[in-house]
């Protein structure tokens, strides 16, 4: 029996389960004690974050596996907890709390809170789960919860955007499910660790790569991957800005992490990486070109997010620890910056032209935008520079025709990115054309706080680039270690006979 305040590895399931429990109890509690119900969401998320941090402190060194229900893998479902999983699992409650809706979109706050909690639980599950079908279940939960959240502004445009998102997402889910079915038919298992053991024989052939392509496109819908990202600009422009921040900053990254886990465990060093490289590079350049043409702040951020995620896919496709490091650096960089930019955009949404001269009324916010823009472009010594440098070096080192083509696209996209971000900065500091234009409202204090904290974090990472990159290399090493994953889930070699 475990005490109430001691922590054990078995508690790793709580950050997934407690938000679900709170979501289920929201309506009954709301009918008994409404003020308590309104506090339930933030309290649960704070508890989840606290538990994850304690787990990190207690067990953060070596990865461990958790057999849910006590059923040994591969029969039961496993959670695999390494630093990568803990990092993203912790990011979920923290960011959901930071972007918790405050006072707006209040037609039905209890239902909204419940859906937010479901989103947080499912996103945490995506980070932790080590079972292909379990990942699919959490992915579906993320999808359904996000459908509800992006309609919160209840405008006609939001409903239309959501229906498009719904259809595309459904297509993606079906493709992913077909991919999972093929994987199961080829291998007879869904446990990622066992898939990793069987992959060299069963999956690293054309019939195995086909399901990877299906899964990549399927999970790619949330990860804003090149051909299936057409929902992004409309949804981010019509959804509440905080929800856009969550989807762009966090949920997209978790879909990427799922694909990366699959890539590392089952498809490393196959044609799968080339597919990711090509789609990622195309996504980057198309996203940045579209952002260049955008005339609306939320749309510009949405397109830029598509572009950055393309870059992330290029990074992870490099393979090995180097690729993992480049991808992770880009993921974290974009997670911090895009969340902060959306936080600033909560009061600035709408046409870019309105932002002319905004630096006068909100000098610090404008300064933060400049900082984030410089880091996104990759101006040394900001962290964005190091992330892009890792990527470019990796591509040069590969120097296959495809990698060099991707390199050209990445450099072209970066030039486009620099152009439109500088245009934004110039606009912020320009003299307003018309003195009578009303000053833009300043961001709310908490959103401003989020953005400032991100700015401070970015500067801190700039001055301590060596320890940060060392720590990140540790995370990447662990995440790229396929053998460790298998050994952790199946600690003895006996399993091979038990698994038959």
């Amino acid at each position, binding site marked *: 029996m*475990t005490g109430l305040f001691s922590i054990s590895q078995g508690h790793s*399931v709580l950050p997934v*389960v407690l938000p679900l429990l709170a979501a289920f109890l*929201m309506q009954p509690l709301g*009918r008994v004690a409404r003020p308590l119900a309104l506090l339930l969401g933030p309290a649960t998320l704070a508890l989840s974050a606290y538990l994850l941090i304690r787990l990190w402190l207690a067990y953060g060194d070596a990865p461990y596996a958790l057999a849910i229900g006590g059923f040994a893998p591969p029969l039961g479902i496993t959670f695999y907890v390494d630093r990568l999983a803990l990092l993203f699992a912790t990011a979920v409650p923290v960011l959901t709390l930071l972007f918790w809706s405050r006072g707006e979109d209040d037609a039905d706050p209890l239902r909204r809170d419940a859906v937010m909690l479901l989103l947080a*639980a499912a996103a945490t599950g995506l980070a932790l789960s080590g079972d292909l079908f379990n990942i699919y279940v959490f992915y579906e939960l993320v999808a359904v919860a996000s*459908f*509800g959240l992006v*309609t919160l502004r209840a405008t006609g445009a939001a409903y239309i955007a959501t229906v498009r998102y719904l259809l595309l997402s459904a297509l993606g889910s079906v493709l992913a499910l077909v991919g999972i079915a093929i994987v199961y038919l080829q291998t007879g298992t869904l446990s990622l660790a*066992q898939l990793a053991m069987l992959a060299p024989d069963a999956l690293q052939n054309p019939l195995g790569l086909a399901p990877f392509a299906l899964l990549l496109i399927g999970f790619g819908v949330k990860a804003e991957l090149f051909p299936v990202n057409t929902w992004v600009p409309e949804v981010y422009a019509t959804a509440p800005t905080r929800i856009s921040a969550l989807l762009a900053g966090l949920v997209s990254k978790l879909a990427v992490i799922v694909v990366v886990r699959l890539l590392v465990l089952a498809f490393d060093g196959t044609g799968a990486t080339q597919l990711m490289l090509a789609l990622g590079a195309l996504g980057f350049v198309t996203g940045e070109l579209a952002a260049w043409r955008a005339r609306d702040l939320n749309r510009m951020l949405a397109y830029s997010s598509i572009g950055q995620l393309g870059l992330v896919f290029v990074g992870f496709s490099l393979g090995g620890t180097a690729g993992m490091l480049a991808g992770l650096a880009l993921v974290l960089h974009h997670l911090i910056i895009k969340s902060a930019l959306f936080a600033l955009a909560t009061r600035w949404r709408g046409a870019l032209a309105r932002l002319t001269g905004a630096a006068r009324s909100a000098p610090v916010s404008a300064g933060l935008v400049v900082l984030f823009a410089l880091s996104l472009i990759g101006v040394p010594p900001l962290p964005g520079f190091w992330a892009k440098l890792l990527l470019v070096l990796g591509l040069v080192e590969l120097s296959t025709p495809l990698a060099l083509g991707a390199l050209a696209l990445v450099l072209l996209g970066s030039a486009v990115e620099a152009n439109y971000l500088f245009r934004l900065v110039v606009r912020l500091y320009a003299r307003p054309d018309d003195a009578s234009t009303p000053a833009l409202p300043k961001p709310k204090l908490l959103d401003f706080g989020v953005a400032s904290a991100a700015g401070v974090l970015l500067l801190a990472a700039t001055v301590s680039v060596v320890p940060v990159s060392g720590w990140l290399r540790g995370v990447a090493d662990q995440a790229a270690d396929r053998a460790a994953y298998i050994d952790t889930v199946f600690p003895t070699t006996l399993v091979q006979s038990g698994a038959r």
Partner: protein
Amino acid sequence: MRNLASLVFTAGLAFLLLVIAAQLGFGEPPMRVGGAILEQAPAEVGAANIVTAVLLGYRGIDTLGELSILFAAATATGLVLVRGRKDCGHGTSDPPGGFILRTGADLLFPLLLVVGFYIILHGHLTPGGGFQGGVILAAAFFVLVLARPGADGSGGTSHTAIAFIEGLAGAGFIAIGLWSLWDGGEFLAPLLGKGVMGELLSAGTLPLLSLAVGLKVGAELAGLMTQLAEQPAGPQHPHPQAEDRGS
């Protein structure tokens, strides 16, 4: 042009999937996990129905996830319906169901409840279980609502009661899981001893989990139906898009 592009895309995708399907070795699936579960499940879980052993035992957290997806869909539908637009629909309320329909519904209601609960409670013994039985429970309430298209649309069922059953059943599922965790095992590990296989009281906590699933699914769907049937004060219909979203 757009239609042509969609057609080409669909044809291409269909061709790809067909080629993949042609290559797959149907008929000789590798029964790696499946075979092991068939061998071990009776002794490990104690449920006569192996499908339930997989759903509530081996893959219990998947079932929790599926429950949450249904809950998310119903809640998201509620979020959209709560803003039902006042400009659509003109208060054309449905005609009354008539004596025969109402009496038939009243007769059918208890029978459907009995069948539903039977299927839920025997989920670990015979084909069926929480999801199937829950849908039958919901159907019992559908019959009531459809036979009495009244002003409040609830057919006499109370929103508060539905909300409580739905929430507490879901919480009950998780509470059983947490009980195992607190007891020193893993989340959702079966408790209470396996009993004699084939008896009603066997397979540990599986029947309880099944009951929680059944009540939650039933309450969820019944709640969704009453929400859709509802015509709150004045001429108001749910927004058409809302109905797609629940499915």
